[in-house]
């Protein structure tokens, strides 16, 4: 079988190339950092004593359970926000469904620091809402206090992951599934609970596990609310404090990675044999039901309420960017364009870098994510699953660990002129690409799973080689899914900071998030930072819109159902 031989040789080469990439840019750098977790401080051999210490330290145990609580509750609240939006826009004739889906994605694109400041000004102890509540009713609500504050912010920030996955899953359900239930006397919430939700469970779990892991590993939001007794902040604080050069920070990082892998594994286990959407036959496009006027009013009220809530940070950001002074008052004292004037002058470099880095990173993600999805789902290569697991681990590696790992692994490697490899801006791109790879990977998976193998078999039957089948059949059909992956990676890469902060070597190579960070460390930079944040969000929104347009057009040109 010469043909089969070359075929698997090509696949094996591809798999090895990806393994090499992941090895060099993910496994090795991370390993150089986390191995410290297995050594006793001050040298000595390998040991597990640090993990024993972890279990015996009240603070860490408390932080662990706090993180579990916050992550789980965030999933609950994010679901509560995502469910109505997903259900209303996929099941009913709902004007502006497209807009809702697009706006529902925006919360993921929240620039660091400045978003939290905006939220404090709106929902903080003395934010607009509480100042007004205090004036009218004499009460204050602790939206942003402690763990509940973290849950509040995280639910708003990460709910798009559930929205996107759940909407896709709901769209993929054969409409006859729900019609059959209606025909047998079921309707409303019962219908949703008994039929739609169980059938959309795979999509929901995919989104929920992503949210759980992201919240578990997020450093920025808890720290900006001054919540330190969670696991990821504990790791961050230890790793970045001078003087405290302690293995415990790395021990916690190992625990974080472990939790993430366990979550992914558990969700895979739950989903085993439950991939309903792809096993259904027949059916057709979704029949959207008409809402009665009263239902319609209620639906719009719910959607507007949810959108107002999840877009509040962006509204706050916008206000802040035009505000002269905003302090202890429901609204800014006055408005000005000065902040934009200030940043537009010297941020064109940041914008250019951000666009370049984000699109390169997202491009790398889509290529590698698509390749891994193909290898796992369509080939029988031994160990192919490991590529998936390795790439997914990136989700859990704290940005600061990856950043330090890159410095350790690549700073000693010199370019011909003596510059360290780690000082090149491409290293920033690679770090961002690795951190956002899981998003593109999941999108590629979803896209490939929906393509019937018979389409590829038909092409091969007509004489196309594997490689040509991939190029002429698989990739065109995956375009929509890959583009979705590109957009997610791109949009979130544009506001990535944690790894960037460690790797940026010069202002001229810095992306927007770094410029924003620098501005946000000065009192006068708050408005300018907000203006830069608005620019970042608008930029990402425009790129998303263009990508969406391109996707629609290519889908329509192919006559595919959108």
């Amino acid at each position: 079988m010469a043909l089969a031989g070359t075929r698997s040789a090509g696949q094996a080469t591809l798999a090895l190339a990806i393994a090499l990439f992941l090895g060099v840019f993910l496994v090795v750098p991370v390993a150089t950092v986390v191995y410290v977790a297995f050594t006793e401080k001050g040298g000595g051999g390998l040991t597990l004593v640090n993990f024993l210490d972890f279990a015996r330290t009240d603070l860490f145990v408390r932080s662990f359970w706090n993180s579990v609580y916050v992550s789980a509750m965030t999933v609950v609240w994010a679901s509560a926000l995502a469910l109505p939006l997903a259900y209303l826009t996929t099941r009913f004739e709902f004007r502006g469904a497209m807009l809702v889906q697009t706006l529902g994605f925006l919360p993921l694109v929240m620039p660091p620091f400045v978003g939290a400041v905006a939220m404090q000004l709106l929902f903080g102890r003395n934010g607009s809402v509480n100042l007004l509540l205090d004036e009218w009713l004499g009460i204050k609500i602790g939206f942003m206090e402690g763990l509940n504050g973290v849950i509040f912010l995280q639910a708003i920030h990460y709910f798009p992951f559930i929205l996107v996955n759940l909407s896709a899953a709901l769209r993929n359900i054969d409409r006859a599934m729900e019609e059959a239930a209606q025909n047998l006397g079921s309707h409303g919430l019962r219908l949703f609970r008994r039929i739609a939700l169980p059938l959309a469970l795979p999509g929901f779990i995919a989104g929920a596990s992503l949210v759980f892991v992201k919240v578990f590993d997020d450093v920025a939001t808890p720290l900006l609310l001054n919540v330190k007794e969670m696991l990821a902040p504990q790791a961050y604080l230890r790793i970045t404090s001078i003087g405290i050069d302690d293995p415990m920070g790395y021990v916690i990082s190992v625990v974080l990675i472990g939790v993430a892998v366990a979550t992914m594994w558990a969700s895979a286990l739950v989903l085993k044999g439950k991939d309903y959407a792809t096993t259904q036959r027949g059916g057709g496009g979704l029949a959207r039901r008409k809402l009665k006027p009263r239902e319609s009013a209620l639906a719009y009220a719910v959607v507007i309420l949810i959108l107002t809530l999840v877009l509040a940070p962006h509204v706050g950001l916008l206000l802040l960017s035009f505000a002269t002074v905003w302090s202890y008052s429901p609204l800014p004292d006055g408005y000005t364009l000065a902040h934009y004037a200030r940043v537009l002058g010297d941020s064109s470099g940041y914008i250019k870098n951000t666009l370049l880095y984000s699109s390169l990173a997202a491009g790398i993600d889509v290529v590698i994510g698509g390749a891994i999805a193909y290898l796992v789902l369509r080939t029988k290569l031994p160990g192919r699953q490991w590529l998936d697991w390795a790439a997914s681990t990136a989700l859990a590696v704290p940005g600061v660990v990856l950043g330090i790992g890159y410095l350790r692994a690549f700073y000693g490697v010199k370019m011909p002129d003596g510059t360290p490899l780690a000082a090149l801006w491409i290293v920033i791109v690679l770090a961002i690409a690795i951190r956002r790879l899981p998003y593109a990977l999941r999108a590629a998976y979803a896209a490939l799973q929906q393509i019937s193998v018979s389409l590829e078999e038909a092409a091969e039957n007509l004489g196309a080689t594997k490689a040509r089948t991939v190029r002429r059949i698989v990739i065109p059909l995956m375009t929509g899914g890959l583009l979705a992956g590109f957009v997610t990676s791109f949009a979130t890469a544009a506001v990535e900071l944690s790894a960037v902060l460690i790797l940026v070597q010069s202002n001229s190579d810095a992306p927007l998030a770094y410029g924003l960070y620098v501005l946000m460390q000065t009192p006068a930079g708050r408005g300018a930072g907000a203006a830069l944040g608005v620019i970042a969000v608008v930029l990402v929104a425009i790129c998303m819109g263009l990508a969406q347009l391109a996707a629609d057009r290519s889908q329509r040109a192919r006559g595919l159902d959108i």
Partner: protein
Amino acid sequence: MIRLFTLAVGLTLALVLAAGAAFAQTGKVTVVTSFSKDVTDPLKKAFEKAVPGATLEVQNRNTNAGVKFLEETKANNQVDLFWASAPDAFEVLKGKKLLSPYKPKATGIAEKVGSYPVNDRDGFYSGFAASGYGIMWNERYVKANKLPTPKEWQDLATAPYFDHVSISAPSRSGTTHLTIETILQGEGWDKGWRTTKEISGNLRQVTDRSFGVPEAVNSGQVGYGIVIDFFAFSSQGAGFPVKFVYPSVTTLVPANVGIVANAPNKAGAEAFIEFLLSPVGQEALLEPTIRRLPIRQETYAKAPADYPNPFKDKNLHGLLTFNAELSESRNAAVDTLFDQLITFQLEPLKAATKVLHEVDAALAKKDNAQARALAKEARDLIAAMPITAAQAASPEIRAAFTGGKEKSARQAELEQQWAAFAKEKYAAAKAKADEALKLAR
């Protein structure tokens, strides 16, 4: 897919090479700094004007990240200067042999600002400016909540300030560390920690960034912040309704600059230090967005009328001579104690403090000796320390943080012991205070 992948790899490589070619430059002085853009931009401009041909490349990182960065990249160092406030960060760098000594040629520089020696006695880093610590508050917040105006550190420990004060963690902010260390040196170990804990009982939050404090005060999320002066001054400059006061006993901390070991452009680095210490460089510090205290006495002649002057103002003189050696010897212990006794035990500490405030109020109305005694016991419980000053600087404890052989326990074990100690004492203090309150009412 394979072809696409090859294409992507090829593209990546091409970009790597292109980027490498564009990187080489001359006359560039690279500096890692924790100073904000407001500070670095004017100084960069002035420096590039004063030294033609030179360009200053600024890498903005917070102090801790900067130290970490130099440590991780020492094998192939590309940075010329480290430029930050906190002297202890420089001590750490010095200890790790990441600095190279340089004696500035400039003359007319003060030996001491306040009580703090300007330059490292071993010549590894030089002071170029000073800043004072004080209390910053949001006027609107204070007015709306009918709160008093503070004057002294001790004010912050009184009842009206409960839940209104913010500070950054000494383990995260070199300057806060210095403030705590000054209190400990000035009042002694036990008394100093008692003061620190009494103020901490009123804290709203402990931030992990120095700037987190002025940020919260500016936006009105907390009322008062313990901050370094320029944060308050630049906030005022940006229009925020904030005020600032130097307490009568304050610490002046120098801002430093040092040359990194194996600096690629050592000459350029020296030129920058000389520029900072020159009259032109010193005058630049008076700019409203920078607002640091120059260390050349004659520069103050050019300062605005109400500009603080450590060479004249009594309260900026300080009451003691800062012992940098002592500070360095217990650096990690002090930071970790603060974190374990205060930052991560803030809720129990505040719970006990709150009741004690109520006891005080009740006693003011109607005295009760027994209650007073119980309250004192409670305060003593709060003030109790798990280790003595001698232990804090002992080789056993120091080794726990450095991984040395003399250690009696691993760092994690020490932390757990201290946290458990504080938790138990605060709970006991709260019980006593509750009892006292019952009696006093």
